[in-house]
């Protein structure tokens, strides 16, 4: 009985989630948006790190 509840509840939640993804294109796009946002944040961060490194290297190369 309890085992059945666990199995059914898990499958129902996964099913509902999947169904929403299939039937709602807007929602689909919304669900996928964070991965693009994160990707941009990471690239922005890495570019900042590179810029900092290049600035510090440039400063070190400048004649006194």
């Amino acid at each position, binding site marked *: 009985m309890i085992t059945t509840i666990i199995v059914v509840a898990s499958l129902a939640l*996964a099913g509902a989630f999947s169904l929403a993804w299939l039937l709602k294109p807007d929602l689909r796009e*919304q669900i996928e948006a*964070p*991965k693009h*946002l994160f*990707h941009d944040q990471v690239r922005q961060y*890495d570019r900042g*790190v590179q810029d900092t*490194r290049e600035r510090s290297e440039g400063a070190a190369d400048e004649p006194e």
Partner: protein
Amino acid sequence: MQTTEPATEHRVDTLLVAAHGIAALVTLLIAVVFGLIISLQFFLPDLTGSVLPLGWGRLRYAHTQGVMFGWLGNAFLAFLYHAVPVLTGQAVTSRRLGLWLFGIWNFAVMIPGWILVLAGVSQPLEWAEFPLAVDVFILIALGLCALQFLPAFFRRGLETLYVSSWYIIGALVFTIMAFPMGNIVPELVPGAAGAAFSGLWIHDAVGLFVTPLALAILYFVIPASTGRPIFSHFLSMLGFWGLFFLYPLNGTHHYVFSVIPMAAQISAIAASALLGVIVVIVVTNLLMSMRGAGVFPREVALRFVAMSTIFYLIVSVQGAMQAQMSLQRAVHFTDWVVAHSHLAMLGFATFAAIGGLIHAWQRISWARYNAAALSWAYGLLVVGVIAMFVDLTVAGLVQAELWLDGSPWLDSVRDSRPYWIVRTFSGLLLGGGFVALLVGLTTGPRGAGAQTLANDRPEPAAAVVTPRLAPAGAGRVLTMSYVVAGVAGVAFFVMSVSLLGVWPQQILAEQTAAMAPPNPLGLTAGEERGRVVYAREGCAYCHTQQIRYTDADITRFGSPTLAWETRFDYPHLWGTRRIGPDLSRAGATRTENWHYVHLYAPRAVSPLSIMPSYAALFDGSPDRPTQEARDLVAYLETLGRARELAWPEGDANAAAAVPDDRWAQMAFAASSLNAHPGRTQPRGNVPALGSPASADTGMMLWAHNCAGCHGETGGGDGPAAQWLRPRPTNLAEHEYTRSRLADALWNGVHGTSMPGWRDHSSADHAALAELVMGFSDPQPGPAASAQQLSLGQRVYAQHCAECHGATGAGDGFAANDLPVPVAPTDFRNQRVSYAAGVGILQDGVDGTSMAPWTDRLSAAEIEAVVHYVRSLFDGDNL
């Protein structure tokens, strides 16, 4: 958009990243040294002598807590200090809070935890070995973690949260809820019910603390390293919610075939299978996200997380498989499970943690970085983890087969030895890899990590892409669905605690009330102190105290453990691994004297044993036990006592209380004897000796099982002989019938250190009987005259028959009431040499009721009675 806020890279507190990173590496190396020492002790059991703080049990506690809290805890924190500002665009709460958190995590948890555990202050609970005083600081630290990292997430909308954020939030919230289940509740809930809660934490420690943070790293590092977003955020969220729904429901699969209600066990097994499916989805998504990066990615952080992903798949599928009853029946308690846990913590989680740490380290402009050393670390760690996993998995299968086919217990110890040696070598590889990791992150030019990044990915970062955001309505739906899922996640956690903890507790309490005798015997103060010593030294980590409802367990160890038998166990001592045998019914199986010798010098009485010596509990000799040794042995003698005292009326009542419980009935129907099957028994009811195994087998059996007491040539002069009372028999001075030898080997010799060897085959017994008869060379002495025999008969009838019986059968009227419970000798089936017989009458036999007779018998009478007694021997005509 212009902003006055500092750029994201300036919001990352690199000092705290580095501080936790270094702390992680240092604690990792210390924990690995602990692990290497305990792995060496498997085949060099006297490596650390009897220094208690370096004993196997205490080091084992320190090893696992060090890996989880010292290494993984610090490494995850280092990653969080890097990841949270990147994920949220905001700084963590405060540096001051971070310094407090660093201080508490390392100086109020790790260092005191290790010191206390090694000093003998601990909890005998898997993944919860630090004592309660330290647990309080862990809870405080977890609370500070939430305060430090969570606010940044909640300043943003849920619909923009990336999957790593979800995992971080989930880990921080659920760990605080799960931690007390295994660390505090078993101190308050006894025995079987406490074990049910303990099982929750065993799995939640991995499932709700380690796994989410490791997956947060994988989902973070993979897109950052490949330069592409992950394959599917939808699948990642499906995996996230699936894991958080199902992980908490897995806990009871650590106690399958136990007395915990079968419905809870089956639920955990079903959840484990479902979890395996979810993990396949997660891993598929991760692998799809890495497509194109190659099997051997150039960037070292990606290399580590890629391998972590593979390990995650293997360990999760393996976990789902081994939770199933058919496999669990065989491999539970074996090294298979140790292989599984090492693959989880040192494979999946550690590789993820290293990947995250390197990723963050590469972005610290002032940090040193040595790429060559990190490549070495990767190679050594991959080989080390795979070697350890394969080696221990095979070892587990070997042990499982030997346990299932009823082989003598020590056969599994003997046959495991090569695997344990290989395990140590694989541990050395791991140690080397971790040293290389430390070198990689502490040597080399400053800022070389960032340079490596530029070299690995020379193309400039593309322009920032504005995320494709859906209309606001869809965002609200998504936010609402996440809120619903969040509530459902908490509900599943509450359900797991209710279903796998609270409900079994109630059922077990009802069972206990129905089955327990009216006034079951608890522990005396001394026995309770002994229990503390047993827990402190980690005995439960080699000797389980749960006989499962399986035929193999019942045959080997006796009747399965019932809930009421564990009602006084705070916390439970069920254990999760059997290196030595289960001790649930060990009471009265051995003599007190044997226990002292075994604790003092284990290999003296059991040459194949790998048990550590506890000579520190003695004042220089087994004859001089300290109070702690006395208490420990007193506790060992209680194991199984309550059940035995209740038998048979108690078992009949208990069986009647659960007439329809098929599993519970196994506890009563399986064995008519609730004691350990190896316990000594009265003479008789012996199966006939079969055809003897080969002489070589006999010699091997002798060397492994008998020589410690009886000596290599049966002279009664083995290493343990000096301490045993009565001393082991000098077999050269005795002559036995085959039936007597069969009886001694099957039933043991009650009251002495000679146990029953019923786990050996009749062919083994026959081979040993042949060997012992070969040792026998009793000299008859001078020929006896008819007059001497007549005198001897009169003396015997007057002084000896009351114990040894009128016919010498050892069945005199006083035989059952002797002050020392060693049965009088049956002279019909064993004969002593003349000289030894005279010696016995002159000096008595220490450790038995046989006293010296020189004060009552003359020399002539002694000689006469020895001649008479020798004449009673009837060879094998009985």
